[in-house]
């Protein structure tokens, strides 16, 4: 069973994404305790695509499927430049407030919260896949 969604490049789509993914998780019996982390990862990756890939009007495709103990989620963005979130400089979470700058924290936390993360870039299409399972986080 797979859930597929095509989204306009607008953060207002987040409500529809949450509704669709929660309905899928409910239907498939995905454990509730992982939902917030899945929501977080999807939001951060989707918002990044909307914010930084301004030269395209292509819809962003989101799909979700179950894996043992959790879900696997894929986000596909067409007609964009390459951007692997893992290549961002890590955020220093030990800095005092005055030295903290906006940006980067969402991706940093996403990579902490998910259990696997892959990035593929072909024909100007970025494909990100992550999984989240019930097992303990490695943080």
């Amino acid at each position, binding site marked *: 069973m797979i859930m597929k969604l095509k989204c306009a490049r607008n*953060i*207002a789509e*987040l*409500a529809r994404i*949450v509704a669709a993914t929660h309905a899928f998780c409910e239907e498939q019996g995905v454990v509730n305790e992982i939902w*917030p*982390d899945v*929501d*977080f990862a999807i*939001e*951060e990756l989707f*918002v990044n695509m909307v914010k930084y890939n301004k030269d395209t009007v292509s819809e962003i495709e989101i799909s979700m499927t179950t894996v043992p103990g959790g879900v696997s989620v894929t986000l596909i963005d067409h007609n964009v430049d390459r951007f692997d979130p893992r290549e961002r400089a890590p955020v220093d*979470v*030990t*800095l*005092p*407030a*005055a030295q*903290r700058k*906006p940006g980067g*924290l*969402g991706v*940093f*936390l996403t990579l*902490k*919260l998910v259990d696997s993360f892959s990035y593929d870039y072909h024909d100007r299409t970025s494909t990100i896949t992550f999984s989240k399972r019930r097992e303990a986080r490695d*943080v």
Partner: protein
Amino acid sequence: MFEIESPVAGHVLMRGRLDAVQAPKAEAFLDAVKGEIVIDLSGLEYISSAGLGVLLRKHKQLSTKGGALQVVKVTPHISDIFKYSGFDRLFKIEKAS
């Protein structure tokens, strides 16, 4: 759904989901609250980095006057997010009992 209100001076309640869509609403509300504040997060189900940014901005505002943001009744998931982002070193955080 996201709701923010200040039933008593210096005390703010947040409920629902503080995501990238709702962050501007939270930011505008907190900007209008003057002086020290305590934010009750008992009803906050979810926060994204946009919401974290709102809290950090308010904390910075208070810090310039020698204050600090105080958040109380923080649920386990949001407590984890604060920990991973290092916010537990910045704010006064009280977990939900």
